[in-house]
């Protein structure tokens, strides 16, 4: 069965991307195969009993709401102006909410529309002029046997597979999941399109402003009907649930020039109205999104997937709405995996995989007391800076934070690598020390629009604590000159210097030659965290 599925997938995948859409007469059958595993055209589904119970059990306001929404669904398409289509859509949404035990939410009707549209031709043939809604609880008999019902099992299977995060009965969990999607999306944005990220962040435009409709209607509310069908072809044939989020990411990247030009005050509405038109553009965007997915660190991708699709984790995390740091953080395992990932994998699009570089951001002294063989070092001490009383070019005691002057020189050093390698920065892993080197540098790089910047979470400490899986020697974990006692001593000294600095001197008292002008960066970090904590 599996191999049949794989074969079919590769066959239809080829068909889809040679024509940039599936032919409308075979589409229902292909969707039926991929969503329900049935190698046949969708069959009629007549839910007489269940529908009756559903209509009786839902409250009148909910039914009124559903009716109102189906009656204003897709006003530009004549199919949805027909009463029988509206009645069937109404019945389907009532039944769906009843079966899934969820409250109806606006957006569900938008997702249903393309599934109804699949059977547009069949519905036109039926003589159903008498179908109309008489009472909220009454099942219009002819509506039950409408050929449109063929779409219902497909609609259910699609939602359950691609958007289970929308189907949680608890409103709290639903919103939590959406917020989580926004946070992960921000991280993707800063990784792939840092300039877009910073443009939006500076204008205080957050994903909860422009992504809601994308994620809640799975783009059905944002694209023309024909384009939604093509996008759903891509989703269904590839079976890639996460392409919803990467498609959104690609939409933003694709329109970045508009976002950079537009007046800051216009950014929210500009983001809102970003869309694509035509089957070719949809497919092209989807393919580019897929490439973005393959460049994304796989560990992060899996975490995102688990957070959105593995329902068991919902309840555990639902109480703690932790903001996710905007920058891409990788654990040691994820970093090793990324390091060892090669473009030869089965995934053809990963041929775009870029080299992966590890940069040690600690001071020279810490680095000399032990570092990874594969890590390059940021030569802080060689950067020009204002003189310090200790007669050192880069003195960790006088310059606990790198100044903009220093950061600019570090960025100049990275310049040849801009967007052609993946950069992983590593600090000591000590929160105080990391705020002095690795975080400012990571932020400065993304602010200078460097793509593919990530941070090794927990830094050197986490690598030292990392337990190698038995029998394997992961590439990249060879140490040079490791002296843990010395390392600890230096870290302690730096920390002390930092604490003394922050407690003894107010900002006015700080001598200007300390180059203490990286405060804006730290403030930005704080403001970012505030944005994530929104709500």
């Amino acid at each position: 069965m599996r191999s049949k599925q794989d074969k079919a997938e590769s066959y239809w995948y080829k068909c889809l991307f040679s024509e940039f859409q599936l032919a409308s007469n075979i589409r229902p059958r292909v969707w039926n195969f991929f969503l329900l595993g049935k190698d046949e055209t969708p069959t009629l589904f007549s839910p007489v009993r269940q529908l009756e119970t559903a209509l009786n059990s839902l409250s009148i306001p909910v039914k009124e709401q559903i009716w109102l929404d189906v009656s204003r669904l897709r006003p530009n398409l004549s199919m949805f102006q027909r009463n029988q289509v509206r009645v069937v859509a109404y019945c389907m949404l009532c039944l769906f909410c009843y079966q899934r035990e969820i409250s109806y939410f606006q957006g569900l009707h938008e997702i249903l529309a393309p599934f109804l549209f699949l059977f547009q031709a069949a519905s036109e043939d039926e003589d159903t002029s008498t179908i109309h809604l008489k009472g909220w609880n009454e099942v219009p008999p002819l509506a039950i046997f409408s050929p449109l019902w063929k779409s219902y099992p497909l609609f259910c299977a699609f939602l359950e597979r691609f958007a289970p995060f929308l189907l949680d009965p608890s409103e709290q969990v639903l919103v939590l999941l959406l917020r989580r999607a926004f946070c992960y999306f921000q991280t993707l944005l800063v990784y792939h399109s840092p300039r877009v990220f910073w443009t939006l962040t500076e204008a205080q435009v957050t994903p909860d402003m422009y992504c809601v409709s994308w994620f809640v209607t799975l783009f059905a509310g944002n694209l023309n009907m024909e384009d939604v069908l093509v996008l759903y072809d891509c989703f269904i044939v590839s079976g890639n649930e996460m392409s919803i989020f990467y498609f959104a990411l690609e939409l933003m990247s694709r329109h970045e020039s508009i976002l950079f030009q537009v007046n800051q005050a216009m950014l929210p509405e500009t983001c809102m109205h970003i869309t694509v038109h035509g089957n070719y553009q949809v497919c092209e965007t989807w393919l580019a999104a897929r490439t973005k997915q393959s460049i994304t660190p796989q560990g992060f991708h899996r975490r995102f997937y688990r957070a959105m699709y593995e329902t068991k984790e919902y309840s555990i995390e639902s109480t703690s709405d932790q903001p996710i740091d905007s920058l891409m953080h990788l654990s040691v395992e994820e970093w090793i995996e990324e390091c060892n990932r090669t473009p030869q994998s089965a995934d053809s699009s990963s041929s775009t995989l870029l080299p992966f570089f590890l940069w040690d951001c600690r001071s020279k002294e810490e680095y000399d007391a032990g570092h990874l063989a594969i890590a390059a070092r940021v030569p802080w001490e060689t950067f020009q800076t204002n003189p310090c009383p200790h007669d050192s070019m880069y003195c960790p005691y006088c310059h606990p934070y790198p100044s903009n002057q220093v950061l600019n020189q570090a960025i100049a050093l990275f310049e040849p690598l801009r967007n052609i390698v993946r950069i992983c920065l590593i600090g000591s892993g000590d929160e105080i020390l990391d705020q002095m080197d690795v975080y400012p540098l990571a932020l400065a790089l993304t602010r200078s629009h460097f793509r593919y910047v990530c941070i090794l979470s927990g830094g050197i400490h986490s690598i030292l604590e990392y337990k190698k899986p038995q029998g394997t020697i992961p590439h990249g974990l060879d140490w040079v000159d490791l002296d843990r006692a010395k390392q600890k001593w230096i870290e302690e000294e730096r920390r002390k210097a930092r604490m003394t600095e922050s407690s003894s001197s107010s900002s006015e008292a700080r001598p200007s030659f300390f180059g203490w002008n990286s405060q804006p960066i730290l403030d930005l970090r704080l403001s970012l965290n505030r944005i994530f904590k929104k709500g």
Partner: protein
Amino acid sequence: MSSQSKSITPLSKYKLVFLGDQAVGKTSIITRFMYDKFDNNYQATIGIDFLSKTMYLEDRTVRLQLWDTAGQERFRSLIPSYIRDSSVAVIVYDVTNRASFLSVNRWLEEVKNERGEDVILVLVGNKTDQTERRQVSTEEGEAKAKEYGIMFMETSAKAGFNVKALFRKIASVLPGMENVPEPTNMQMVDIKLNSNTETTTTSESNQTQRCRC
């Protein structure tokens, strides 16, 4: 852009957030104000929608950023973050739907929780054209507004009744506008994005056009 280059005075930006139950006519009021048109079948707003309008008043330019929120219960916990930083909160109810009027208290609480006293509140009873279906009288609306000490107005987005007046009234009480006479013959310029998804790109975002107001 030539129309904008003339303005010397700094541009003031104000955020107006529209709140209220579903289908009370928030989108209709905004569309009537923006484009002076009405449609019986506005699609449900999912999450939020944004529109900006630049008003050229006698001695200043004011940009109103209209935040049209979704009225439905299900995503209501997203709303507080939309209310944040707003200068004006317009709470809309449907005069033909008592339940939407009863929800006004909850919306007011929502705004107060988020903005305290730093916001101009306006209560709007919409759909006055449907006189035979009215369930909430003007007096009740007025009483509610008086109780909370906020502005009140009844409108009909369908008939175009009082919509322009509503925005004129709001413009006159915006912070920093106290000394400016209530605009009467103001010129308005739409900064219009291509809100119609059936057309090709958003590149027309800077297009300006005169409105019929």
